[in-house]
């Protein structure tokens, strides 16, 4: 036990220090601390204001029908889903392909102790994320549920037990994929494709419950309540918290702990063997002739960005998700225009907007999810010495990162918009005006991302996941993009009152591009001053 405690304490220090979480230099200045605080507050308010309001409204509706306990089933299902997604995407790096296996592997630590400590770190991430996701539901439930001391006391232990079962299921699934694909030369690509398939499947199924014009959460109620009757742990959670049923709480906690413990005890040796095999991975390319073709410094930097992007599954999955769903939706619109339009309406929370505006909102949302410029400098990590020691100017490096982000967002949009135009019968000139606005938006968010990464770099990491998903720059990059969408939406509303909306889009595109140019000039100045000070 003392060995486990020492290991867990060390892993916590390594993984959860402020420097590791927020980056290398967030506390250097008062301004940065204020910006960090503001960013976190913005994320909190944006999330709680959006999802929180929907759940509060749902709780009020359910309470009026004396069904507020169903909200606990929502909470269980959202916690379940969050745990599945998080563990599925992180288990490979967190358990099966440990970056520090060279250090920990040779130590005289029992396999189950090592796996348990690593699993604890993973589960801590799961708990933090689950808490964030389900906090609005919990708040809405307790705001409308009848007061029960026993239920309130049982809430914490049962809440902690909820993610255990889904975490084990997701880890087993990830482990199976790993075992099946580890001998294939394109295993990382197969993993990435599987991730997209699973996530898009979940997304489509969650939206299939919704309908336009009302609270989209309300339509999930029947399904969730039914699921609660069929799946005992859901019912146990609701009974424990709503009725203060100790027996249900015991069932939930014991079943979760038992499954989790069994996973660690039974599979720990196998997991460590998989780690050892991962360290010995060798495969040879079939092509033996070397390609010596040359290109310009800028294009070679751009090529490096692309290879890094496609070489890291979590990078391509997170920063490339927007373009993928954009293209999937665009192709789908050719065949299922009504269903795709209904999906866009759901995403707009039922707002009845003209089709071009719904399309524009969706395209903007997808392009806003592209945030490579906010993390690509950080991803250089210990390899930053390469570009720093080579004769390439820092602005060129930053321009390549910015251009890559623009291409990653704009090119799929340029393909998708004509397809949407065909699918929804939008005039091509209107689609061209939309593309102009999207291109300006992409330029602006890319430039903002570059500033964010220069200001909040994170070079200290074991795995790229920490940069792509957990860094402050990634957080600001994604939510900053959504902020720009909101601002441009208001601007378009204003412009469309004084000119045709197509002309408004052109104006918006030009203004965004001009603003992006201004931000880029700032990026260049910052890069020239900061680059040599960046410590990797």
């Amino acid at each position, binding site marked *: 036990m003392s060995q486990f405690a020492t290991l867990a304490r060390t892993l916590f220090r390594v993984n959860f220090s402020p420097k590791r979480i927020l980056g290398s230099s967030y506390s250097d200045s008062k301004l940065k601390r204020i910006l960090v605080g503001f960013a976190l507050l913005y994320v909190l308010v944006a999330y709680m204001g959006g999802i929180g309001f929907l759940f509060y409204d749902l709780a009020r509706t359910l309470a009026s029908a004396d069904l507020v306990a169903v909200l606990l089933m929502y909470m269980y299902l959202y916690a379940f889903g969050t745990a599945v997604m998080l563990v599925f995407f992180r288990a490979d790096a967190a358990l099966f392909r440990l970056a520090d296996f060279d250090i920990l592997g040779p130590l005289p630590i029992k396999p189950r102790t090592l796996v348990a400590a690593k699993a604890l770190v993973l589960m801590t991430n799961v708990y933090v994320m689950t808490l964030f996701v389900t906090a609005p539901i919990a708040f809405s439930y307790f705001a409308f549920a009848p007061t029960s001391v026993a239920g309130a006391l049982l809430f914490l232990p049962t809440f902690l037990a909820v993610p255990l079962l889904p975490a084990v299921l997701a880890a087993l699934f990830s482990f199976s994929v790993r075992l099946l694909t580890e001998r294939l030369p394109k295993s990382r690509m197969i993993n990435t494709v599987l991730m997209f398939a699973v996530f898009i499947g979940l997304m489509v199924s969650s939206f299939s419950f919704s309908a336009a014009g009302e609270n989209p959460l309300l339509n999930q109620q029947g399904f969730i309540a039914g699921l609660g009757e069929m799946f005992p742990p859901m019912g146990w959670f609701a009974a424990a918290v709503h009725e203060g049923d100790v027996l249900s709480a015991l069932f939930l906690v014991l079943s979760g702990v038992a499954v989790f413990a069994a996973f660690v005890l039974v599979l720990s040796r196998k997991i460590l063997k998989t780690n050892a095999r991962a360290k010995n991975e060798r495969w040879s390319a079939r092509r033996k002739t*070397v390609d010596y*073709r*040359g290109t310009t410094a800028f294009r070679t930097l751009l090529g490096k960005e692309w290879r890094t992007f496609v070489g890291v599954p979590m990078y391509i999955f997170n920063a490339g998700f927007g373009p993928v769903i954009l293209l999937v939706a665009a192709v789908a619109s050719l065949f299922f225009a009504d269903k795709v339009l209904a999906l866009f309406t759901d995403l707009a929370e039922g707002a009845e907007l003209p089709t071009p505006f719904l399309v524009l909102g969706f395209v903007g949302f997808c392009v806003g999810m592209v945030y490579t410029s906010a993390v690509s400098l950080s991803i250089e990590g210990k390899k930053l010495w390469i570009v720093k020691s080579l*004769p390439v100017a820092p602005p060129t490096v930053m321009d390549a990162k910015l251009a890559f982000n623009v291409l990653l967002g704009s090119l799929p949009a340029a393909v998708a918009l004509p397809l949407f135009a065909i699918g929804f019968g939008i005039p091509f000139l209107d689609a061209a005006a939309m593309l102009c606005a999207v291109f300006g938006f992409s330029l602006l968010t890319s430039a903002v991302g570059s500033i964010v990464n220069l200001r909040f770099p994170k070079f200290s990491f074991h795995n790229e996941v920490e940069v792509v998903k957990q860094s402050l720059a990634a957080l600001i990059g994604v939510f900053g993009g959504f902020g720009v969408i909101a601002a441009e939406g208001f601007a378009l509303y204003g412009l469309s009152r004084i000119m045709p909306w197509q002309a408004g889009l052109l104006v918006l595109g030009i203004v965004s591009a001009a603003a992006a140019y201004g931000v880029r000039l700032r990026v260049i100045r910052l890069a020239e001053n900061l680059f040599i000070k960046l410590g990797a």
Partner: protein
Amino acid sequence: MLKISHFTKSYDGKNKACNDVSLDIEQGEIYGFIGHNGAGKTTLLKAIAGIHDFDAGEILVDGHSIRTEPLAAKRAMAYLPDNPDVYETLTGAQYLNFVADIFGISPADRRKKIEAHAGMFEIAGVLNDPIATYSHGMKQKLVIISALIHDPKVFVLDEPFVGLDPKAAFQLKELFRDLCAKGALVFFSTHILEVAEKLCTKIAIIKQGRIVASGPTAEITRDGSLESIFLELIER
């Protein structure tokens, strides 16, 4: 060709990692840089390469200040870090092409150099494999090849022999001699005193950020071995 004048660097603003370091290295010299762990060797080498900023002093590479003309200075130089962290998502060939593109090397020239050096270091057969599959030594060899791609006048290397097999270490030493015979200079740090004693024309010993001895190897060692002189100097 490599002139370091009154170089001073502090990481925390209080303790100086390097304090008033001055060295003048001419073409044709193989200059060894020796010191205990944390003495300031890597700090100086990274500053020469333009990776670290510094508080005071000046570094001129082939007459170009690394501060005011960094691109010109870097074009004349090649740097090899103590740990060969390179882009693991690239193949060896892609990495070498990346470096060659940055230096603007023609396809014919890069082909000639890469084929020659990859053959010499016996990694020609794995150049199309991802760097992620390379061993430490193979990565070290790859970075050495990338450093040779543009015929630099100044080689700055941090512990270049670590991770190399005996044959590759021998070849690297021969390469140093060959490059210096052609007019380049080699400035490298090492903990292997026997190598420094036999290979280097000049040596500098750094202790707690200050140069405590520098000059021709024969003058530094006098009648004793470099090991005994080094131990005497750092324990003084």
